[in-house]
Every structure is written in structure tokens, then in C-alpha cells.
């Protein structure tokens, strides 16, 4: 019996050896293949629990970071100054779409971007826990805060760009929200907050700076029309148009008026320069009719209308309509009709004028820094487009300077600094509150910053408000914040 038993013992031993071998194969030798299987949700959840990189402002201060948590995701995303940066950072959820930088640079932050492949390989070999790359933004805390505070309780947005590099110095959308309340791991809790926020009439989740419902630009669009006129070679700032107090639109019984209700300065004729300085509608409408719908559309497209810009979040394309009849073209020439824009686009227009006609690609990202502190990517200023010549840019700039110095944008005046600016007061419909604008740059001769400000709902003043009253002072504070650095 013992002989058989020895043989059976050997068989049992072989069975166990088979189990030892099969477990070793699975748990040691083929783990990498198994972990990279797309159906392996454990890997997916592990990627959530890899420590996500930080988001820093231009000064290196941490805006968003992942701190250890006790649940399966191992880390909790925490936002410092959550509302101040909500339009920039977005929020990080575990299984929903992430907006803002959290979403558009999610692969770098989580460490899964292609550039990080070899780092990850190295981590597997050395057994280190993977960590995502950090993103340093171009957002300057002082400028961001100035814009945020200046907007106050108004609904609206501010975008400030360095015209020479395209670096976005501030991007604020109001009302703001607290990303900490959305970066929760409990999905039902997330949806409770999300639905509450998105269900509001003016949802804080909408980034009004780049992707809101788009705004009527009003008079800030005159900069595009003036550029088109000068670029055509047929007009100079001194080209003049009839100067009545009322102008009947062709094929229509409607009249258009200037903002104050009177003529555009004294005299039977008003120049383009005067029309920009005092923000007159009637001369611009005549200019628009003379240029034609298509010429304005071409110029608008060169500034970036019709394109989605990646900063790296994607902006909603601004719209200048084509195929307009004569009266519609005249209305569109001072930013009414079906003109629709983002504050980003208006800031880009100003930045192009400020930078001698060269429009730089706007971006929020200064640097992407690997966990070992090496730089994966850094901002290299690239030209987005050259919509106008340096000469045209200089002429439009001078008109904008006069608008601030003694015209319709006077509230943007800064002592000791030459500011170029343009206001806008866009109509939205009979009786509806105006949309208020300011765009400009400073110092005019060596611009450090170009800004666009939009305030919805007439800043709470209905139809009594105008751009110079509400938007220009906000723009001024943002410009000052940059100049005071």
C-alpha cells in the first residue's frame, strides 16, 4: 500500500506544483499584459488612483492638487481658491466628463499621455507609484483676482491676454462655482450638485469666456469693420460719411441712431476716426454698406471668427453672418444683426491690433512638468493669424487711444499710461437689458496686456447702462493689475 501511496503523493504534489506555476504565471510573469488589457477595469480605476499632477498658476502657487484619501481612489482632488479659478481648472470627477484644464489636459495630469509612456514603464520596473505631470498655467493670480473682484456680482466674463505671447493672464466667468463640490467620488452626490447647478437659469457651469451662448458684440465689432476698411486700401481714418442724427435703413421703414441720439460730432460729415472715438453707429453703418457683407466677413474670419480655438479647452466659434441684405449688413457693421462672439474672440481682436497686426495663439498653459521636474512641454508663442498689416494696426490703435483719451471709453483712462480701448453696448431685443463691453490694451505703444470684458444684463441697470459706465472701469482695473506688476 505504501508504494501506491508514494505514487499518489507524487501526483498530488504535481497537482499543487501546477497550481504554484499557474498562479506565478498570472501574478508575476503576465501581469503587464493583463493590466494593459482594455477590459481590465481595475487598471482604469488604478489610473484614477494614480496621484494626479498639480495645477499651478503662473507664479507657481498650487491651484489644484490631489491629496491622499481613504477610499479606493486613493486621492482626493482639492482646489485652493475654488471659485476664483473655476472657469480655468474645471473639476475632476472619477467617471464623468471633466471640463476645463482637468479635462483638456487630463492625460498629462493623470500620467497617461504618450510623452509619459517611458516614465510609466520606468515606474513599473522600479515599482514606484505612478504620478501625473503638473500643469503650470499662464494665469497670473493678481490679474485673475482683479478681474474676479472687478466683475463683482455681475454675470459676465473677462479675458486678459499678453498680446506678444498669447499667454492668457486672466480668464474669469461669473457666476463662478466651487469645483470642490463636484470633485466628489460619490456619483450620486456629484449628480445632485451638478443638476442643481446646471438647472439654474444662468448656470455657473457655463464658461462664459469661451463657451457661453455667445454675445452680441455691439460696438466692439466696429474694430473689425474699421480694420476691413483700412485693409481694403480704399479708406483712411479720415474717410468721411454723412452725419445725420437718424438714418433710414434702405428697403425699410426702420431708422438707426447713434448712441446719444444726436449726430456724430459736429459737421455735415463724420470720419471713421470720429466714429470709433465716439462710437457712432450711423457712419459705421454707411461704411459697412460700402464695404459689403463679404469684405467684413473675410476680415472677421482672419481675426478668427468661425474657428474653434484651443486654449487647450475648445472655444465656441464666434459668428459673423454672411449672405446679408443691405440693411442687415448695415446693422451687422456695428455689432448687431446676427453677430455673435465670445469674449475670447474680442480679446484676440484687441491683442492682434496691439501686437502690430500679428495675432498670437492664445493659451492657458505655460509649462507641463513631469514628476521628476523635467519639462515635458513649455509655451512657445506661435502666430495664430495675421489679420491686418502693421500700418492698419497702428491706425486702429490710434483711434482706440482717442476713444479712451476723450471719447466713448473715457472710464478706462489710467493716469500716466496711454490706454487704447473700445466700448460696446449691445441691444438684445426691445426692452431687454443691454450687453456691455469693453476691450482694449495698455500701454498703447508697448502693450503688455489686451483685455475683453463682457457684462450681461446691463450690469443690473437694464437699458440705462452703457459700456463705458460698467465695463470700462472693470477693464481698467484688469489693465492696472498687469501694469502694476
Amino acid at each position, binding site marked *: 500500500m505504501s508504494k501506491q*501511496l508514494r505514487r*499518489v503523493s507524487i501526483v*498530488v504534489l504535481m*497537482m499543487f506544483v501546477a497550481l504554484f506555476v499557474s498562479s506565478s504565471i498570472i501574478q508575476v510573469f503576465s501581469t503587464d499584459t493583463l493590466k494593459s488589457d482594455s477590459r481590465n477595469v481595475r487598471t482604469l480605476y488604478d489610473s484614477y488612483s494614480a496621484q494626479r499632477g498639480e495645477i499651478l498658476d503662473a507664479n507657481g502657487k498650487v491651484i489644484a492638487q490631489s491629496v491622499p484619501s481613504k477610499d479606493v481612489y486613493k486621492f482626493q482632488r482639492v482646489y485652493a481658491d475654488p471659485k476664483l479659478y473655476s472657469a480655468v481648472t474645471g473639476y475632476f470627477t472619477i467617471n464623468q466628463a471633466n471640463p476645463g484644464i482637468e479635462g483638456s489636459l487630463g492625460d498629462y495630469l493623470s500620467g497617461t499621455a504618450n510623452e509619459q509612456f517611458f516614465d510609466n514603464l520606468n515606474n513599473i520596473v522600479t515599482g514606484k507609484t505612478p504620478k501625473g505631470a503638473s500643469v503650470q498655467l499662464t494665469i497670473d493670480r493678481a490679474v485673475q483676482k482683479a478681474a474676479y473682484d472687478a466683475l463683482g456680482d455681475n454675470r459676465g466674463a473677462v479675458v486678459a491676454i499678453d498680446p506678444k505671447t498669447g499667454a492668457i493672464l486672466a480668464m474669469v466667468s461669473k457666476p463662478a462655482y466651487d469645483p470642490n463640490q463636484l470633485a466628489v467620488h460619490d456619483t450620486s452626490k456629484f449628480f445632485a450638485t451638478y443638476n442643481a447647478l446646471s438647472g439654474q437659469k444662468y448656470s455657473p457651469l457655463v464658461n462664459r469666456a469661451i463657451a457661453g451662448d455667445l454675445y452680441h458684440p455691439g460696438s466692439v465689432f466696429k474694430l473689425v469693420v474699421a480694420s476691413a476698411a483700412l485693409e481694403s486700401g480704399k479708406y483712411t481714418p479720415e474717410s468721411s460719411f454723412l452725419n445725420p442724427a437718424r438714418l433710414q435703413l434702405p428697403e425699410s421703414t426702420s431708422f438707426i441712431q447713434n448712441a446719444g441720439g444726436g449726430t456724430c460730432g459736429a459737421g455735415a460729415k463724420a470720419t471713421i476716426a470720429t466714429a470709433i472715438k465716439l462710437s457712432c453707429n450711423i457712419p459705421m453703418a454707411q461704411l459697412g454698406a460700402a464695404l459689403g457683407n463679404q469684405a467684413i466677413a473675410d476680415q472677421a474670419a482672419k481675426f478668427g471668427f468661425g474657428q474653434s480655438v484651443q486654449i487647450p479647452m475648445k472655444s465656441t466659434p464666434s459668428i459673423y453672418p454672411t449672405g446679408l441684405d443691405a440693411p442687415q449688413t448695415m446693422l451687422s457693421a456695428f455689432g448687431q444683426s446676427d453677430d455673435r462672439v465670445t469674449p475670447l474672440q474680442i480679446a484676440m481682436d484687441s491683442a492682434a491690433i496691439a501686437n502690430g497686426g500679428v495675432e498670437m495663439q492664445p493659451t492657458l498653459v505655460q509649462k507641463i512638468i513631469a514628476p521628476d521636474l523635467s519639462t515635458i512641454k513649455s509655451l512657445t508663442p506661435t502666430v495664430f493669424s495675421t489679420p491686418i498689416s502693421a500700418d492698419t494696426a497702428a491706425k486702429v490703435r490710434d483711434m482706440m487711444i482717442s476713444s479712451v483719451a476723450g471719447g466713448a471709453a473715457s472710464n478706462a483712462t489710467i493716469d500716466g499710461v496711454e490706454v487704447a480701448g473700445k466700448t460696446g453696448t449691445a441691444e438684445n431685443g426691445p426692452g431687454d437689458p443691454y450687453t456691455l463691453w469693453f476691450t482694449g490694451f495698455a500701454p498703447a505703444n508697448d502693450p503688455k496686456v489686451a483685455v475683453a470684458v463682457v457684462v450681461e444684463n446691463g450690469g443690473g441697470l437694464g437699458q440705462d447702462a452703457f459700456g463705458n459706465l460698467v465695463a470700462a472701469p472693470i477693464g481698467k482695473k484688469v489693465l492696472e493689475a498687469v501694469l502694476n506688476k
Partner: protein
Amino acid sequence: MPAPTSWSPNPPPAPSYDAGPRSTFTNTIRLKLRVPARLRNLELALLVPALGIVAFALVLVQLATSGKTDAGILTLAGLLALLVLAMHVAMRLVAPNADPLILPIITVLNGLGIAEIYRIDISAKLSGWESAGVRQIAWTAMAIVIAIVVIVLIRNHRVLQRYRYIAMFSGILLLILPMLPLIGTTINGARVWISVGPFSFQPGELGKVALAIFFAGYLVTARDSLSMVGRKVLWMTFPRARDLGPILVVFAASMAVLIFQKDLGTSLLYFGLFLVMLYVATGRASWVVLGVGMFLVGAYVAFTTLSYVTGRVNSWLDAFSNANYTAQVNSSYQIVQGIFGLAHGGLIGTGLGLGQPYRTPLARSDFIFSSLGEELGLVGIFAILALYLLFVSRGFRIGFAGEDDFGRLLGVGLAFVVGLQVFIVIGGVTRVIPLTGLTTPFLAAGGSSLVANWIIAALLLRLSDTVRTTPRLVVEP
């Protein structure tokens, strides 16, 4: 053993003045008490770290999942520890020479199983009687009590030989119970359950104990006719046709389980058990050749005709193909998820309570091994497999050292059936063989399996006690 020396004709001079037969007598009593107690003391010394490991595992699970400890489950586990100690005390009284390793081994295995089941309950947010962990503790308590009863009642294992035919009938009854209408229940495709009211039970688990007793009793009496006569073909002596009866009956029963209960694992387990006991009893390799041949033919026929067997084999051979992974029936989803879990654990595991074992279906029962593998890593898996191997080898030791052939055969059979079951389940989970629906002994959630395996442990303890108590005069070559 030092005992005989005290009976030597010339006892050494006693230190006391009160010399003579009386002091020799007291010495003897003292020796009798001390020598066997050595084994029980060793058992106790091993039980302390075994219970410690289990308590540590439970605390780790609680700390990892909630950051604090919860007295409730620890109290319940403490009651189990008391029961284990009660079994230890019972053995001091009725089986003092029993094997000292078996109880500590199954304590660790059972406890680790409870910890892991409890851990998955936590992630499923189950508590109270809803919690499979709490039910597992209750079943374990019942299993230990039954084991104590077995070891106290059965003082001499030879009585079991007398009841071999009763064992046979109860074994067959337990086997066919699930096939009966009304009480038979199909769970996860296999009809191996009976349900009475809210309770469900897998009678086949107990059936394996009964059948092991029957096989041992029957083979001890019948082995002469099964091993002596036969016809020589090539170098092997094959049995006469008229002696083929028993193997054909068991084969038929196994195939019936395969076809009607759709339970590949149980079928393989019973047939494997019979074959090994037959071989050990008769010493004829031809039985094994015959048996394996029959089983292979049967399995092949099943593979080509029974769709669930085809499915199982396909999802074993090509588990990772998308067609098998997403199949509606017999998909390899479970097994692949289990393997993902094992891979996630890697060499050292995620740590108890820190992995994601709940992503695998049946993580508490059929896939408890992958759950433990994920959280304890290959290191923990090797430890668990080593414990099983040790358990089986303690059983085989009875076979090597036993005095009576019935006891030896029964010890080998019971130990082998546990070893084979471990191989079938874990081999299925790690893709050594197709996946079947057996439970992992002592670890997996399930009352029937716990009760059956604790009875097996109690019988092995009883057998081992007999081995050590019987003086050995002849050492077998």
C-alpha cells in the same frame, strides 16, 4: 517513547525515601499524562498564532475599509476562537494523540476565508444577517460543533467500516437529492442544491464524505478479488470483466452528475476519488489506465454533445477572446475578471481591504481564491497552497503510518478528496483546467462545504489519534 523504560524490571532508585512500587506507579501516571499532552501543547502553541493571524486579518480589513475597528464582527470571531479552543480541549480528553497540525491549519484557512468574505460584504455595504461573512461565521460555528460531536462520538473509526453500506446509500441519496423535484434547485447553471424554505444546501459536499467511507470499507474487503486475478496485456494485468462492476457503477454515477446536474467539478471529484482509492487499495495501475481512459472518453463525448461542457472548455482554452468574453452563456467573463484580479495583486498583493476583488462575480465563493490572491498577492497564495499541501500530507501520513487498512484507506481518501477539490477549483480559476463549480475547501462561502470539510478534518484527527495510540510492532517495508 520513554514510557516503556518506567516498566523496566529494575527501575532507577527513586529520589524519595518512600521508594517502591508506589512511586513507580505515580511516575507512570505522570508520564502518561505528560507525553501525549506534548502533541496537544504543540497544537495549542500553533493555535495561538493561527487565531492571531485571523484576528489580524479581520482588523486589517476593517482598518483598510473604514479606518476604524468594529467590535461586532471581532466579537463573533472571538466566539469562533472559543469554539476552536473547545475542540482543542475535547481532543485533550478523547483524542490526545491526534495530529497537532490539522486544527491550526484549518483554523487559519477558515479564518482567512471569513476575513475576505467579510471584506467583500463591506464593499457591498452588507451587514447583519445579510452579510455573507456573518453567515459564514454561523456556519463555521455549526461545523466546529459537528466536528466536536464526530470526534467525541466516534472513538473507534472501525465502526465506520461496519456502516459502509449505509454510507453508500446515504452517499447516493445525497447525490441524487438535487435531482428530485420540489427541493432540487439550479444555481448558476448547476443543479447541485436543495432548498428547504430559506435554506439551501449542497448535499454533494456531504456525499463525498459518505462515499469515501463506503469506498474504503468496500475496497478493503473486495480488493483481493480486484487485484489478484486478471488477464495480462503487454506489461499490465487487466481485471476480469466480472470485476468491472464497481468501477462501472461509479463511472455511471459520475456521468449522471455530469449530464443531469451539469456539474463538471463534482463528477470529476467523485470519479477521481474512487480511482485513487481503488489504486491505493489494489496496487494495480491498470485500474487507473482503465479509469482515466473511461473518463477521457466520457469527457470527450460530453464535450461534443453537452453544450455547457463545450462552453466551459472553450472559455477555458480561449478565455481572452472577445467572443467568449462577451458570450451570453458560459462566457469567460468571470474567469477573466478573476485573472485580472490576480494580476492586480501581483507578487505582494494590494493588501487586505485595499484591492478591488468585488469586481469579480462570485468573489466570495467560487472566486475566493482570486479575491485572496488580489489582496494577499502571490506570496499569500503560496502560503495558502502550502497550508493545503500540508493538510493533505497530514492525511497521507495516516496512510503511511496507519495500522489497519480500512483506516489507512479512509485517511488517504479523505485527504485526497480535499487535495483534488483544491486542484479542481484553483486549477479552474487559474486556467489549468476548465472552470467548474466546486467550492474551495474551508475558504469559500457556503455552509455545506464547511460542514463537510470540518467532518473530514474531525475524521482525520480521529484516525491520526488511532495511529499514534496503537503500538507499532512491525514496520512495513
